[in-house]
Structures are given as structure tokens and as C-alpha cells.
């Protein structure tokens, strides 16, 4: 069954075409990776698919629901971990989860057990009552993942989930992502420019460049496609998006990215 289906999805900002006729299909249970250099249009694509940004043209369906005309239904079916910090530092971990349990209409009788299960799954039970501003970057990311899967979404969007994390924290986040898929069969859509992450997690990878989808395939077939023996995913990335060294992030994006890295580090 198709969980996500887009045809010709496009977003323009004035004269800039941030996402140019994106067409993708994602089957239930896949871990789909969207790769691309900074400014390739990954975040814009995710913002459209999560109903935050109306597309300029094209169509997209989540489990058969139109993202523009049936946005309210789509919102019940998806989970989203934004690139930026999305939990509230002035509330405890538990309170952050409880608020979203209420916003997602989880019935009061199930709330406590769901919250405890979510805390256990991400290993935050012992610190649940601490204020989130005392958490480390890795703990914050895990809490964010718990928060956006409380309602058991069909499709979980992760926008660069491990950016700025140290290797240990990154490993823990990867394990949780794999666990979500194994335990609940969650379909995962993740954007990243971490090749190791894409190779480890993704069953299929799409490479975006300057707003356009360049190629979509399994990691192994992508590596075989560039005709270089023992090619890594990094080689694949350079092959398909390599002429963009000078493109991409602006001063503003760079400063935001650095600030985020500092916060999470």
C-alpha cells in the first residue's frame, strides 16, 4: 500500500523554484531517504508534505488523503521531527509528551501507558520530570522522536535527525529509528546529508539537486549505477550533486545551522 504519493509537486518563492515537479511514491514500511546538498529543496519538500507550506502546483497524498484539501486528516496520520528544536525547554520531558497526547486526542485512559511506553522506548524514564532545558542534545532528539510518535503515525518525517549530535548520541537515535520500524512498522521519510546515516537506515534513497529529483533507487543499486568499483554512497552523492560546491546555504542558513550545532553539541 502506498503511504505517500506525489506527482509534480512544486513550490516557487517568487522567481526561485525551490522544489521542481517532485514525483515520489513510498510504500508502507519503507525507510525513505531524501539526500541533497544545502539548498536542494529538501526542507521545502518536507514542509509541503507536512501541510506547513501550500504547494504552488502538483498533488500529494498521504494514505490517500490530499495534503491541501484534507490537511486535517493528513495531520492525524503523520509525525514530524523538524530540523530545529521542537520541544519546550521550560516544561519537563513528561509535560512535553502530555501536551501532545492531549493535542492528538489520545484517550485519557490510554495516555499514561502510552507516555510511559514512549519514555521507556527512548530511555528517558528516569529524567522524565526534569526540565528539558537540562537535557543533552541527544536526549532532546530522542524526546522529540517520542513526542512525534505518541499518536502512532503511519508516516514519520525526520528532517536531518542527527545533525549536530556526537557519534554516541547519533548511534542511539539510529537505533530508535530502526526500533520504530521493527516494532510498529512505521514508514519513515528522512532527509539527511549524512551518507553513513543514509546507508545504515534507508531502504531507498532519492537524491535532490537544485530543486529537482535526480535519481531514486536502493543504496546498492545507486552505488552500482555510477560505474566505479567499491563506490560508496558519498561517491554517488558527488556523482549526482557534485557540481554544487558553491551553491546552497546562504549566510543566514549557515548561521542558523551553526547555532543549532552549538545547542545540540
Amino acid at each position, binding site marked *: 500500500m502506498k503511504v505517500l504519493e506525489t506527482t509534480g509537486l512544486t513550490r516557487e518563492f517568487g522567481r526561485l523554484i525551490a522544489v521542481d515537479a517532485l514525483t515520489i511514491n513510498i510504500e508502507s514500511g519503507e525507510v525513505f531517504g531524501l539526500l541533497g546538498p544545502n539548498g536542494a529543496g529538501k526542507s521545502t519538500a518536507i514542509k509541503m508534505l507536512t*501541510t*506547513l507550506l501550500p504547494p504552488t502546483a502538483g498533488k500529494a497524498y498521504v494514505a490517500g488523503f490530499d495534503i491541501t484539501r484534507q490537511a486535517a486528516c493528513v495531520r492525524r496520520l503523520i509525525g514530524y521531527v523538524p530540523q530545529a*528544536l521542537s*520541544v519546550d525547554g521550560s516544561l519537563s520531558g513528561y509535560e512535553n509528551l502530555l*501536551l*501532545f497526547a*492531549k493535542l492528538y486526542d489520545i484517550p485519557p485512559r490510554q495516555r499514561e501507558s502510552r507516555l510511559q511506553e514512549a519514555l521507556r522506548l527512548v530511555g528517558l524514564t528516569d529524567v522524565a520530570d526534569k526540565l528539558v532545558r537540562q537535557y543533552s542534545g541527544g536526549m532532546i532528539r530522542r524526546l522529540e522522536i517520542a513526542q512525534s510518535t505518541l499518536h502512532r503515525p503511519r508516516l514519520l518525517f525526520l528532517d536531518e535527525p542527527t545533525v549536530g549530535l556526537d557519534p554516541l548520541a547519533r548511534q542511539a537515535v539510529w537505533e530508535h529509528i530502526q526500533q520504530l520500524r521493527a516494532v510498529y512498522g*512505521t514508514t519513515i521519510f528522512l532527509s539527511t546529508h549524512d551518507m553513513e546515516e543514509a546507508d545504515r537506515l534507508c531502504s531507498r534513497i532519492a537524491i535532490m539537486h537544485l530543486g529537482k529529483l535526480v535519481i531514486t533507487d536502493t543504496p546498492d543499486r545507486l552505488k552500482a549505477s555510477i560505474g566505479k568499483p567499491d563506490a560508496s554512497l558519498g561517491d554517488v552523492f558527488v556523482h549526482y550533486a557534485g557540481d554544487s560546491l558553491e551553491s546552497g546555504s546562504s549566510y543566514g542558513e549557515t548561521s542558523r545551522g551553526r547555532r543549532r550545532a552549538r545547542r545540540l553539541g
Partner: protein
Amino acid sequence: MVKLQEEGGGHGDWDNSIPVARLSPLASFSGLVKKTLAIAEFEIRKLRHDFTELITRAAQPVLWFILFGEVLTRARAIPTGDHAYRDFLAPGILAQSVLFVAIFYGIAIIWERDLGITNKFLVSPTPRAALVLGKALSAGVRSLSQVLIVYALALLLGVKMNWQPLALLGVLAVVVVGAALFSTFSLIIACLVKTRERFMGIGQVLTMPLFFASNAIYPIELMPGWLRMIAVINPLTYEVDALRALMIRDWQSSFGIGIDFVVLIATTIFLVIIGARLYPRVVI
């Protein structure tokens, strides 16, 4: 509540229900109320974790009351009928301190947007109106501390207060609605200007006319005609009018407390509707 339609085949105990597009008006309304209360509840919980904000807010009413109020009460420069100027001023200071706190509420909206919290709220199935109204309500509840401060000061300075329980409840209601109104106004500005720097500038520019073109510190009758026109369309005037009639013994309202409430509530609803339309754009 949301009607759910079962769909076969799924994984583990993942939720296999699919939401049906249409909701009855009653279900939509009850959803709106529940979500509004949830948003407000957690905004207020934040206060429990950090009290300093409440204490620093007390400074402004104290300064206005003691410095400005006492000088003008002695000078008798402003005609306030049979009442001392400090009686006239007390409700004005309450309204002002609520306004000053509420009008900078938009900063929090921009801050949350910068962090990414707003994205998370907008992706959830929470009605946009509930997001805006929940914030407004929490601003209202937060302002209640100002009532305590102003009442304590008024008692200390010998203002002739009305202590009837119903009047006290009325004061609380006016303060909550007033704060909700101006915090939603602030949210709208935040959604339009989108950066903290621009917001700070505009916040300063708006506060002054809202405050001085109202009946907060002098009667409207003293104003030139053109300014009086502005004061009459300024919601703060109605807030102060209601507060004065409810807080001060033997004070007659100029417009009628009923009218004051209607104006305040209608303006708030109008602003919430606009705010709910603009709020999703803050992340674009």
C-alpha cells in the same frame, strides 16, 4: 469527537484507524475548547517552573502608582469629580500593566517560531483558532497577578475600592479578556513582521498611542475632538471604563459595563479569527 473508521491489516498496536474528514459542529466546538484549554494549561505550567517573571512585572505598576499618581493627586491638575485622582488612576494602571505585558506577547511567538516549536504545533491536528485562543487565555491568566499587585498598592495608598465579591469577579473577567485581546493583537503583529528586532520597534510604537489615546490616566473629556475619536475606538478605553466602574466605590461607567464587555469580547473574537488565519504563515 473524531469518528474513526477501522481499517484492516496493520502492525503491532499501531493505530489503524483513519480519521474521517467531516466533523459535526458540536464535535468541532468541543475539540476547539479542549485544545484551547490544553494549550493554556501548559503555558501556565511554565509559570510554575519559573516565578521570576511575575515578580519583575510588579515593578511597573508600583512606579506609576507611587511616582506619577501621588504627584498628580497632590497637584489636583486633572478634574476627576468627587474622587481623588489616585482613585481614578488605579484602574488605569491595572489596565496599563496588563496591556504592557500582553503587547509584547508576540516576542514569545517569534521565539517559538525560531526554535521550531510552532512547526510542531501546526503539524498537529490542533485547530488554528485553538492555538491562538489557548495562548490568549494563558496571557489572561498570567495577568491575574497584576490584579493582586494593583489591589495591594491601592489598599496601601487608601484608594476607595469596591470590595463586593461580584465586582471583584468582574474585575478578573475584564483583565482576562483585556489581556487576551491585546496578546492576540500582538500575535497578529508578530505574524506580520516575523523578526524580533522589527517587532520590538513596532511594539514600542503601538503601546504609546494605545495607552495615551485612552481614558487610562485622564478623562476623555479633556481631549481635543480628534483625539477623543481615537480614544472611543480604542478597546483599552472600554477595558478601563469597565475596570473603573467595578473597582472604585460609587464610580459610574461612561458606556455601561455591558457595552464594555460586548466591545471587548467582540474585538477579541475578531482578532482571534484574523490571528488563526495568519498564525500558520509565521513559519513560511
